[in-house]
């Protein structure tokens, strides 16, 4: 781990440099090393993939159905015939990509309360403004930037 870290850091610094040079400085250098990467909300969504990452839909599906990690099916249902006991606290995720753009889906997951302050949906990529967070979870978002992109990629495949 330790030995590859400098390389990773160099690479991310390089990515940051690239972004600055093309005018996307918001993501910044070393964004991957921060628990929460910076993002910009525009017209009800987040257009730039978090940390400039490319999500993987396969990993995203695993996260969405994982009840310890993604937690989505505690509240949502969706097209997951193998999953018993799906929640009914939220709209079904079936066909979500036909209803919402990737930008809007991304913001929903990153911080649903940015759209509706009273939202029941946990803010998956926010650590500010939370109260009494358990020691094991403090300072960590529910999902990392990479995991958010995986989920966004997967939800993008759910069309009617």
């Amino acid at each position, binding site marked *: 781990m330790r030995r590859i870290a400098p390389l990773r850091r160099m690479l991310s610094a390089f990515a940051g440099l690239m972004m600055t040079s093309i005018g996307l400085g918001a993501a910044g250098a070393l964004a991957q090393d921060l628990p929460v990467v910076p993002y910009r909300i525009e017209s009800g969504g987040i257009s730039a993939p978090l940390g400039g990452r490319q999500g993987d839909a396969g990993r995203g599906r695993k996260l969405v159905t994982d009840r310890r990690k993604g937690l989505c099916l505690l509240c949502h249902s969706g097209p997951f015939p193998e999953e018993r006991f799906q929640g009914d606290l939220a709209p079904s995720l079936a066909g979500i990509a036909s209803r919402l753009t990737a930008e809007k889906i991304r913001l929903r997951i990153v911080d649903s309360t940015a759209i509706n302050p009273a939202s029941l949906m946990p803010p998956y990529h926010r650590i500010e403004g939370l*109260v009494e967070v358990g020691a094991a*979870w403090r300072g960590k978002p529910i999902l990392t930037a990479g995991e958010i992109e995986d989920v966004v990629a997967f939800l993008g495949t759910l069309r009617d």
Partner: protein
Amino acid sequence: MMFPERHSRNNIEPSSDFYLPAFFIAVLFAINLSPVPFMAVRAAEIPLAQRQSGFELMQAETQAMQRNDLSNPAMLWVREGEKLWDEKPGENGQSCVACHGVVTGMAGVAASYPTLDTASGRPIDLTGRIQQCRTDRQRASAWPRESRALLAMASLIGLQSRGMPIMPAPDPISKAGAARGKALFNQRVGQLNLSCAQCHDDNWGRKLGSATIPQGHPTGYPIYRLEWQGVGSLQRRLRNCLAGVRAEAFPFGADALIDLELFLMERAAGMTVETPAVRP
């Protein structure tokens, strides 16, 4: 399990999930076909006419288990409590029965705890009161929180109020505690950023994974919980919910937990005590 992480300061895990192991096969899918109105958080209090015990939302088999004392596993704890009521554990040879007489004299007591402890000027819960008698009046060693003996005694005393209405303590100090508890109940907490009210006021009756969200009333405690395979206190239940939203689960006996208990009793005023209840 939704909340497998153990970060308790005590050895009782607050690890409960809101998602039961798959042994209730009866419900295969909880997909709601009718459009559910997804409203904003109202945190509106439950109208009196709609208030109901978690009992009402349970499967018929679990209800039957609670209804019949012969099938209610918590009655084993009650039987142990009966033995402890007569024991003389301390140097002074005092038993509960010696001072309090037959336990039926405790009728109505559990229905109005927590209450003001005049000696300390602070609210005290039923287990705290039992503990006080045990250490100060029996000169015996304290029973640890969530120990079998303490739960047995609390179940026995709770049973004496079964069928009686909940009467929250009326003194100003308990009322102030209930007010703090109410604020906590409505406060979003934890990494999941959810308040008790968002689940128990706004979404009761709906499915969180496999679990049906109850209104969250304290009417049955201590309870026999199928998932615990044992009897546990209201505080253990509250710590489960706190850990469920990945919040700091206050330690047993913490003021914040007693405040929450006080508020839950106020919120359930007039409802019927069911102790010892059975819950999934």
